[in-house]
């Protein structure tokens, strides 16, 4: 039997080549995007001499492998490099913005789980009933609505119409926890709803799948109450796929934060990444994608460890 710590250490070691692969991918993809960053930065002033000088300053005139290794060497020292636009250390830029994105993702994950999982369980437990149809309908609508539209609608409805919540902006939690929460409710809901829909549908399917298994039928046959069957037998067995999808959704939310941060003017990593993509700010995009990727891996690692807690059989693997 492998201890959770050994397992975690092994997974972390495996994360290194994965991150390396990701760094190659993001480095290569950025170079495939048309548009020379020197031209984008210089814009209308992009004379051949100006472009040449800037390419030299950014080391963009070097062969791609050299550029990659230069970036990688910096990373190993914890140096993400300087951004093209403001010459600011990227590490500090990310650190300044990461708490906003993490808080948003955490709140959205919580909201997605609190909305999606109960909805799915209800639908699965009452198959073809009203709750089930509602789950399916909400799931379909939730998956179909794009975040940017939902965000603006929530803003118009709950902020402009009802005047319940601020329409955007951010207040650090240290400054005022209440205002911080008020400012994050709409963004978190925007981010959460489509993910809750996915979770709801998946939870429903997982419950339905487990409910048909022999041990559940046996539990029913021996006279257990329906709620006992659901909570004692169905739910623990349906938990693994639900937790897996929840973890995946957390990853998607880290990506989805880009749009939501733009709509609600949140100073997070997502907004910075989008601006950097538009400006061809290579080192910023590379670094933020890598950090988001690393966080995604971490979430998956935690999920894998959680499997062992949920299902003891997993620990033996």
């Amino acid at each position, binding site marked *: 039997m492998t201890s959770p710590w050994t397992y975690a250490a092994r997974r972390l070691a495996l994360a290194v080549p994965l991150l390396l692969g990701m760094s190659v991918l993001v480095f290569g993809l950025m170079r495939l*995007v*048309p*548009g*020379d*960053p020197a*031209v*984008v*930065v*210089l*814009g*209308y*002033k*992009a*004379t051949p001499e100006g472009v040449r000088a800037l390419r030299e300053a950014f080391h963009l005139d070097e062969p791609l492998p050299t550029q990659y290794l230069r970036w990688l060497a910096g990373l190993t020292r914890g140096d993400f490099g300087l951004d093209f*636009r*403001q*010459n600011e250390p990227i590490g500090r*830029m990310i650190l*300044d*913005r990461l708490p906003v994105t993490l808080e948003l993702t955490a709140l959205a994950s919580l909201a997605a789980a609190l909305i999606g999982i109960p909805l799915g369980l209800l639908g699965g437990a009452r198959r073809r009933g009203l709750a089930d149809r509602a789950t399916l309908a909400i799931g379909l609508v939730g998956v179909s609505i794009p975040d940017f539209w939902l965000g*603006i609608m929530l*803003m*118009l409805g709950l*902020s*402009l119409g009802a*005047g319940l919540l*601020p*329409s*955007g*902006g*951010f207040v650090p939690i240290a400054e005022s926890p209440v205002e911080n929460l008020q400012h994050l409710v709409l963004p978190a809901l925007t981010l959460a709803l489509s993910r809750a829909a996915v979770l709801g549908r998946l939870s429903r399917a997982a419950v339905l799948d487990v409910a048909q298994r022999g041990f559940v039928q046996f539990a029913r046959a021996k006279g257990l109450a329906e709620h006992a069957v659901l909570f004692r037998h169905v739910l623990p067995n349906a938990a693994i796929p639900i937790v897996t999808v929840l973890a995946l959704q957390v990853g998607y939310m880290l990506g989805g934060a880009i749009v939501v941060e*733009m*709509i*609600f*003017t*949140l*100073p*997070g990593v997502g*907004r*910075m990444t989008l*601006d950097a993509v*538009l*400006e*061809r700010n290579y080192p910023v995009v590379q670094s933020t994608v890598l950090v988001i990727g690393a966080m995604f891996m971490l979430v998956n690692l935690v999920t894998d460890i959680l499997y062992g807690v949920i299902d003891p059989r997993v620990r033996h693997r």
Partner: protein
Amino acid sequence: MSNQELGLTRRGWLARAAGVAAGAALAGGAPLTVLAQAAPKRGGTLRVATVDKPVNMDPGYAQLYSSLQVYQNVYNKLAYVDEAGQFIPGLAKSWKQENDKTWLFDLVDNAVFHNGEPLTAQDVVFTFTRLLDAKNKLPMRIFFSPVEGVEAVGTHQVRFHLSKPFGPLLAMLTQATEIVNEKALREKDPKLFPIGTGPYRFVEWVKDDHVTLERWEKYFRPGRPYIDRLVFYAPADDTVRLTGLQTGRFNWIQTVPPQRMPELERGRDPKPSSGRPYLPFFLMLNASKPPFNDRRLRQAIAWAIDRTEIVKLVYFGSHVATAEPTPEPSPWATGVNAHKGGPDIARARQLLSEAGAGNGLTLTYLVKSQVPVLVKTGEILREQLKKVGITLDVQPLESGQYFEALVGKKFDIAAAWWSVTVDPDMFYSPLQHSTSPWNFSGFKSEEADKRIDAFRFTTSPAARRKMYPELVRWFQEEGSLIVFSNEIQRYWMKPNVYGSAPLPSLELRFEESWIA
């Protein structure tokens, strides 16, 4: 000047020019702007939502309009331009032209930098020495090429020495440069911590979120500014900005979606400022290669386009249709239109035929995909040009590709705007002079250079005004730049916000604004 900066893009650093927004005071302190009926009141916080976020607070770089509109409140310039386009005092309380090549400026003696240093002539000398020194590679330098140097005459008097007479000197001074203090620059990075003599001092800059400025108690104009605190935000979307204003998150915003204007104008909250056209939109015809190296074909386009239709269908009345860069009420308005009575399809067809393109022509229209109004302009243009047998291929390109194509002159027609028109030289010189790096239409003509130089290097305002209409007509007839509209600048605010009006410089200065 980067992609988003130059006046061509509304956020361009050229988007600056002078002007005390909200009407600065004359030397005596009389406010010039459209002010409210009631007496101005001290205090309050103005939460401002602009179109884009600031990037660099060093006025030497003057990189982005989004940066300028913030730090213009932190610094002062020697002179400003008011709503009517007249030059008014700033840190220079008066000036006189001693001869063709020297100008003398008297400075105020009570201005204090936010680091406690009093303003002296040495600060002005330092500002311009820094700007003009090629080693510093400051982008604004190119605009002051006729300035040889600045000399401190007394503690509060400076003399500008020019290499040749320079008509737009005052206009340039109202556009640049904010006066900086050497000690302040050494103490703190000016890109991040602006220190000027302006009405507001810099407090904090939370990147991607907001910039906070606070009233400067030692401001040299007694009683100004009225508002205690300015907070600048930059929501990325028009609707978000407007919703923020409606919910009270902001109390002043820079723009609203054009299609919402008629509905908003009927209401009381929010209220609009006065509106004036200060931002010319135009087509650049690539005259560096066929087919538009043929003047007749450029003329054909000029006769074929219907400006009124473009303004109506694309800009919902937020623009005025015009053929000149500085239409009414600019003091430089001429009313000249070499294609009056257009569109004239028959004439356009005839010109095409004379140029050997009677059987039709296929052209490319280059546009940045992030600017939907110009994409739509291209679509309307495509329909208009179809009537004269021209097929227009509208090519919306992403920033990087767009600039590569524009700078590499790989286009036939490109659409753009220009935001520096305090003096029309600031429009024609960069865009049409053969030596300018911003002559994207590739139009090179000795005659054009001669005309631009004559206008630029004449100092008598009366003589310049006399020669200007002919300059406008000449360029209209050449047709390498076809001005089709001008965006009306109009800001939106809560009903209790007063004293804010657009300026020809497009500056956002809140010195005279107040909250009831």
